């Protein structure tokens, strides 16, 4: 069971990496980019039937730092 966990910085938390990427995109001539936020994707190959609650537990205990990050679980 392929599962993706998308980890993003919470709104309001400064993302200097996103700002640098935004700056570089503007420098490459791409206009109309209003904002850039950089996150990460963790791909999990899980045993079939793994409970969503367990995946959420993995996110809270390790994959995301909920002080600064949100997470979203995407199941194929």
């Amino acid at each position, binding site marked *: 069971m392929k599962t993706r966990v998308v980890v993003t910085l919470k709104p309001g*938390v*400064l993302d200097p990496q996103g700002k640098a990427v935004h700056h570089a995109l503007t420098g490459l001539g791409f206009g109309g980019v209003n904002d850039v936020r950089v996150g990460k994707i963790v791909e999990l190959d899980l045993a079939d039937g793994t409970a969503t609650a367990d995946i959420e537990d993995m996110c809270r205990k*390790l994959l995301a*730092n909920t*002080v*600064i990050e949100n997470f979203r679980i995407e199941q194929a």
Partner: protein
Amino acid sequence: MKAAVIVFPGSNCDRDLAVAFRELTGHETTMVWHGDTTLPEGLDIIGVPGGFSYGDYLRSGAMAARSPIMRAVADAASKGVAVLGVCNGFQVLTETGLLPGALMRNAGLNFVCRDVGLTVGTSQTMFTSRYEDGEEIVIPVAHHDGNYFADDATLDRLEGEGRVAFRYAGNVNGSARGIAGIVNDAGNVLGMMPHPERMIESAHGRTDGRRIFEGLVGALS
């Protein structure tokens, strides 16, 4: 007096911290491997050193915080054993939840490696008792992820309870309210990004960090 330093794969300030403890306690420091599940009996001080534990995989300190020994460190901290986390050690302590907040990428994106001015936030902790409130000292930093973040309620609580141990005199990394180091609510756990162990003897150029260790040893004697 017994001190131990935790060693993770990728720690690189573990020996410096061990030397600082040895100098001030007069006893050899015990090095404890991250995969161990127990700490030596009768410890007074635990050092969580700087470095790049687990190559900073996932987030700085994230993997180290889940290593077997950190459960024992958390248990010891809850029983009042003094814990000093420096740089990556501070990151590990926030990731374990022993200290509030998180340490993010420096706002300027640069790795900052130089001596910085700090203001002592409080002299009312076992770590900072040898400083004056508001005293300016100089201690080196060397980090990429030292940008302290916590929500406003947490920051207000830290300030209201006198738990901000050190602030940057000039904010080098974008930290919320210039915070460079904090203590837990019981006052026995200090996390700080600057490296006091790198300024403990005259050969280091300055000795501004020495008083942290002196204060700690004095308080525990």
